[in-house]
């Protein structure tokens, strides 16, 4: 009894060429993604009410490396603007955008659903409800006043609570549970929490502006506090999701086939959902509800660079981060000194950009 294939190279079949490689991240795309991140960082630090020369900014960024001490020609105040205001904000944009796009790409793979976004399982509704509870209770001198409940903490706890509730409801069917039941449970939990949020806002109309300011998202930050909060979740989510990028390709053939190929689809799915949800909750707690990035960036990458999750996930993380950091520049400079909510800018810029990508991809693909 012999196998059809040998597990060692056994002579090259006719027509084989060195160009035939499995799907994977091509170096050119990786360089493009890193260049986009760098460009977004320099733009985020250079542009603002006080314009700073990009060359000097680049020198100051280099000065952050250990052992480097170059003269950028900037004043002490300008250096402080870079290191304590703009740089942490740009880095937070990179982390939040990267997390949302990575989580969106992972959800699309896990659920085999192109419409999946990071808020699919109730993260947005849970965070929104919890933040509304805190703001309205604090605003009217309610029960939560005096407790150390900050808005980011409430958003994080609300997001994780909602996803946990979705998981428990979606798993209630025992063996009959499926990705579809989980999505439906997410819809039910979101609807329930959104209704609760609407009721609270109706009862506390004086808090509406404050709640909506949070719902529309913002990257306002002072110092590195938010970056330090989000960074561990970013690293955890990135490691777990990126390590599973090939498994997501295998899952794309369906659970039965993935099982027959030796995987545990259910186990991989729940691990990825947990990692992506944790990262999304951290992003939401730091920046509010920023829409669009988590669904459009992975699709743009898919159209331009390839449909394998080995390509989509790392590039979504890089381009998602760069996209959000750049939109934040627009959000804080377009109507200065006022800031436009970043969620509005992501939709206004991202929509036409995605149409452009779609059109060019159609031309390329015929």
């Amino acid at each position: 009894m012999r196998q059809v294939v040998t597990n060692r190279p056994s002579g090259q079949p006719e027509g084989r060429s060195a160009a035939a490689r499995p799907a994977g991240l091509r170096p050119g795309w990786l360089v493009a993604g890193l260049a986009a991140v760098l460009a977004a960082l320099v733009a985020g630090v250079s542009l603002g009410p006080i314009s700073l020369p990009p060359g000097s900014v680049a020198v100051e960024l280099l000065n952050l490396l250990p052992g480097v001490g170059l003269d950028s020609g900037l004043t002490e105040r300008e250096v402080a603007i870079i290191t304590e205001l703009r740089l942490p904000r740009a880095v937070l944009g990179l982390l939040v955008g990267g997390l949302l796009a990575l989580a969106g790409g992972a959800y699309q793979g896990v659920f085999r659903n192109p419409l999946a976004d990071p808020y699919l399982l109730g993260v947005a509704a849970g965070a929104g409800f919890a933040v509304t509870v805190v703001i309205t209770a604090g605003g009217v001198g309610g029960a939560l006043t005096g407790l150390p409940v900050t808005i980011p903490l409430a958003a994080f706890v609300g997001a994780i609570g909602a996803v946990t509730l979705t998981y428990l409801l979606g798993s209630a069917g025992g063996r009959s549970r499926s990705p579809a039941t989980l999505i439906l449970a997410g819809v039910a939990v979101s609807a329930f929490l959104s209704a609760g949020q609407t009721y609270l806002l109706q009862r506390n109309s004086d808090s509406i502006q404050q709640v909506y300011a949070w719902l529309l998202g913002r990257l306002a930050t002072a110092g590195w506090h938010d970056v330090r909060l989000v960074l561990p979740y970013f690293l955890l989510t990135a490691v777990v999701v990126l390590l599973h990028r090939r498994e997501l390709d295998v899952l794309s053939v369906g659970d039965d086939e993935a099982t027959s190929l030796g995987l545990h689809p259910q186990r991989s799915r729940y691990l990825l959902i947990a990692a992506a949800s944790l990262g999304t909750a951290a992003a939401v707690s730091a920046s509010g509800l920023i829409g669009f990035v988590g669904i459009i960036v992975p699709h743009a990458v898919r159209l331009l660079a390839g449909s394998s999750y080995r390509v989509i996930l790392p590039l979504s993380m890089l381009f998602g981060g760069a996209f959000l950091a750049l939109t934040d520049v627009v959000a804080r400079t377009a109507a200065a000194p006022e800031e436009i909510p970043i969620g509005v800018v992501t939709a206004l810029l991202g929509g036409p950009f995605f149409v452009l990508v779609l059109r060019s991809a159609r031309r390329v693909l015929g």
Partner: protein
Amino acid sequence: MSAPAVAVRDLRVRLAGVPVLTGVDLSVATGEWVTVIGPNGAGKSTLLRAVGGLLPTGGAVSLFGTPIQQLRRRDRARVVATVAQSPVVPAGMSVLDYVLLGRTPYIAPLGRESTADLAAAHDVLGRLDLTGFRDRELATLSGGERQRVFLARAFAQGATLLLLDEPTSALDIGHQQDVLELVDQLRRAHGLTVVATMHDLSIAGEYADRMVLLADGQVAAAGSPREVLTTELLARHYRATVKVIDGERGPLVVPVRPASAPDGVPKVRAG
């Protein structure tokens, strides 16, 4: 004497609380081609999924002498490869990438393909005359070409037991023959064991060493194609009127209209 490739004893499967298979026994020798036939809903696909370890079952299933529950998933995937009735075609995936999925049992968890895996995939593509399609998107291929790619992915698994669920249901008669000839060639060349389900009884009889007729979740008949493809058995279990003709390689089953059907063209009264 070596253990059979497949040994099924008193197999019971319930789906959503409904019994689909009840007390099925099946033994398939190494190198044998067994085709499972039966009317719609008889439990053919369920039997294949149970043998492939894709369903929780009652009773016992052993592959090459090892109870299936004792095989780790990756080890099982090196022993048995399944081609589903309508495999999912992932959007944008190339033929090479699809065939490489078959190497998953040999790739470390969270790892990536080695050069040996790539060589194995190219090897299978060459053997199945698919090298020219290597970089094509799977979704753009015709039904016959796709079916060959599905088989290539299964062969890339390096498994010696092949489970084929309706492998020719979407193909025209020429492509049906191409695909089954290919499977038979590879089976003979590499000593593979094949368990297939099929609806086309004549073609099923031409290729199978033995046939199993399932009806209402139980084995209604088993034996050589000549023993199973009889007018009486097919009438009883398919409720079909057929003629069975003796062919060179096996019985040929021809559906005929029942004797009770009206003759000729219905007359329409003018005016």
